[in-house]
């Protein structure tokens, strides 16, 4: 079972109520394991979602919702959603694939799913079902990222600029930026470029104080606004975002800069509205010009491209979910077979007692042979359901067969423990 909330159902003000720090998260995981009937528990916490997953014998899903209300207050209640059974598997696999993320196809969630599983193990029992579920989700997420293009293309203006810079210059290490103007998007773009290796920044702004402040943030240098045309030829990447009512980089200025660079490319990122760089600058040799509209259009194309991958993503999710369910279905046979083995042993013992007097005439060696034979018959009978489960890939068939076994041999369902993984003793007994 699982319950939680995400950006799909709750505004940020509500999501904040269930946003936990690392230490708090440990407390919540421990608390989740105390939910009546929960044998295993994990909490998935990302910027945009908080979800509690449990395995065990919780009878009513409302218990999980109440648990979240306890920790987030009653305000979270209308925003909660819950899943059971196969719905949980598919939901988590979808989340791990980035198909449920705010930015479609983002890859960070994969690490967060892995962290949730690790925390569940650290704070709880071995939790085999939850661990396997989360591990399978990670496998599913990885497959989706490698086999589809859901993660392809940059989906923000700043990252699109980074991608383009990489396409032009390759490794950005040692490259330089000239930041003209100090708009917010320009700052974000410069930050993204610095994160990807750009090492030298010069900031030119009408207000020198603002330029100095920005330059200090990036460990760069501030210069007066009037100096920027001189500096154009020295920078690999020029980001403009001034509030000037007219263009500030003419074709002539750009040509001079390009000439000074002797054919080394120059990448203009014009984030200003109205534009700072004359559009025909982009026609010059070895000069690449992208304005805000160009970048936003590319972001849009990336998002559309990612959206068109959803069918392929869903197919992988379905395949991985079936594989997990098959594992789970096979796991359920363990407690049933434990019971079945005990029942057969009970029958064998009873029949042995009944025939004891008739077998009294046998020698010790003969008695041992007969007893070995009865045990061998029992093992043979036990091996049949195992073979059936091994060879069958339909989880509903397996569930139906197990249910029949429980009914026919009056096995005690109350003693069945679906979380047991101790297969080997029974398997050995089944021979």
């Amino acid at each position: 079972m699982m319950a939680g909330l995400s950006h799909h159902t709750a505004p940020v003000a509500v999501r904040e109520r269930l946003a936990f720090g690392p230490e708090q998260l440990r407390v919540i995981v421990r608390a989740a394991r105390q939910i009546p009937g929960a044998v295993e528990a994990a909490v998935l916490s990302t910027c945009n979602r908080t979800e509690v997953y449990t395995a065990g014998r919780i009878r009513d899903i409302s218990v999980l919702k109440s648990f979240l209300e306890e920790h987030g207050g009653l305000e979270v209640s209308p925003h909660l959603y819950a899943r059971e059974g196969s719905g949980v598997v598919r939901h988590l696999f979808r989340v791990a694939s980035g198909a449920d993320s705010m930015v479609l196809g983002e890859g960070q969630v994969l690490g967060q799913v892995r962290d949730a599983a690790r925390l569940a193990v650290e704070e709880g029992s071995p939790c085999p079902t939850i661990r396997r579920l989360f591990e399978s989700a990670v496998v599913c997420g990885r497959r989706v990222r490698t086999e589809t293009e859901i993660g392809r293309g940059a989906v923000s203006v700043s990252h699109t600029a980074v991608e383009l810079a990489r396409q032009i210059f390759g490794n950005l290490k040692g490259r330089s930026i000239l930041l003209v103007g100090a708009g917010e998007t320009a700052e974000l773009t410069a930050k993204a470029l610095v994160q990807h290796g750009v090492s030298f920044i010069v900031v030119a702004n009408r207000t020198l104080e603002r330029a100095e402040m920005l330059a200090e943030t990036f460990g760069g240098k501030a210069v007066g606004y009037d100096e920027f045309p001189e500096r154009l030829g020295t920078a690999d990447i020029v980001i403009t975002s001034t509030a000037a009512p007219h263009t500030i980089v003419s074709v002539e200025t750009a040509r001079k800069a390009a000439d000074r660079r002797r054919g080394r490319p120059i990448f203009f990122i014009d984030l200003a509205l109205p534009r700072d760089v004359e559009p025909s600058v982009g026609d010059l040799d070895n000069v690449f010009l992208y304005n805000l509209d160009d970048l936003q259009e590319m972001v849009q194309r990336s998002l559309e491209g990612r959206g068109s991958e959803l069918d392929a993503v869903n197919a992988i999710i379905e395949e991985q979910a079936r594989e997990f369910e098959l594992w789970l279905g096979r796991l359920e046979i363990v407690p049933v077979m434990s019971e079945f083995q005990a029942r057969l042993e009970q029958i064998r013992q009873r029949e042995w007692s009944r025939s004891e007097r008739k077998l009294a005439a046998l020698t010790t060696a003969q008695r041992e042979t007969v007893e070995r034979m009865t045990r061998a018959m029992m093992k043979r009978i036990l091996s049949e359901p195992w073979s059936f489960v091994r060879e069958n890939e339909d989880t509903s068939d397996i569930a139906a067969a197990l249910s029949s076994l429980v009914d026919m041999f009056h096995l005690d369902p109350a003693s069945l423990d679906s979380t047991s993984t101790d297969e080997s003793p029974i398997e050995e007994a089944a021979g």
Partner: protein
Amino acid sequence: MNVSHALFIAALLLYTAGAGLYHVRFLTRNGGAVPAHIATALGWIAHTIAIGIRTLELGHAPYVQFSEAVSTMAWVIVLLTLAIEFRKRMSALGAFSMPIVVLVMFLADTLPSSNGYSPILAGLSDNPLKSHIGALVTAFGAFALSFCAALLYLLQERRLKRKQMPSHANEPSLAEVESLALSLAAFGFSLLSLGLVLGVVTAWQGAWKGQWLFQPIVLTTFATWLMYAVLLFRRGVLGKRGRQTVYYLLVGFVIAAATLLFVRAAFPGQHKF
């Protein structure tokens, strides 16, 4: 059809498949380059064995006749393509180089060939001649690949100018493609220089004495050398880069290809190729 020719044809077919697969990947922007690598690598292995058998048959490396030299050049281009693919993960290059390889192989197969040396070549001392031809064959192979990198550069530049995002995340950047093209040109230029020096030495020592200089093919080869010398001077000394440099690479290879294909056919002289 003998074994070496059968293997040669198998190599030609596998190279054609490789060229097709590289192109499909490049144009559809989908799928991995592994099938193209496999077809090309298998073709190269078949080609290598064919060259090996031919070497045993002739008793010397098969690049003395023009058709053999052309085939060896294709072999060099494929080897360089595969080496660059594995080292730099630049599978887009194969989409350009492999069609050239197929053309060159086809040319090698259709050109007349005979066993042994032609009379004029037989009169020359073997080792400098072989080194002369070997160096030039490799140089022209490197120029062909440099030409392919130059084309890739122009295509990538066009995409960026047209505001199109790259199709593959691991597509090479403009800087990488330019650097590769220039490295190949420099490599080819060194071998061309060596080949020319060896050629001059061979001609002086042999029967030609002073007549070698005015052979049309020798003159155009010097023109090729000059073109690449100017290009490398511009890059190395003047620090020039970018689109103009790429144009030099294109023109350089066009002169080189014309030298091999047309000048040789139009002005048959003492120099056999």
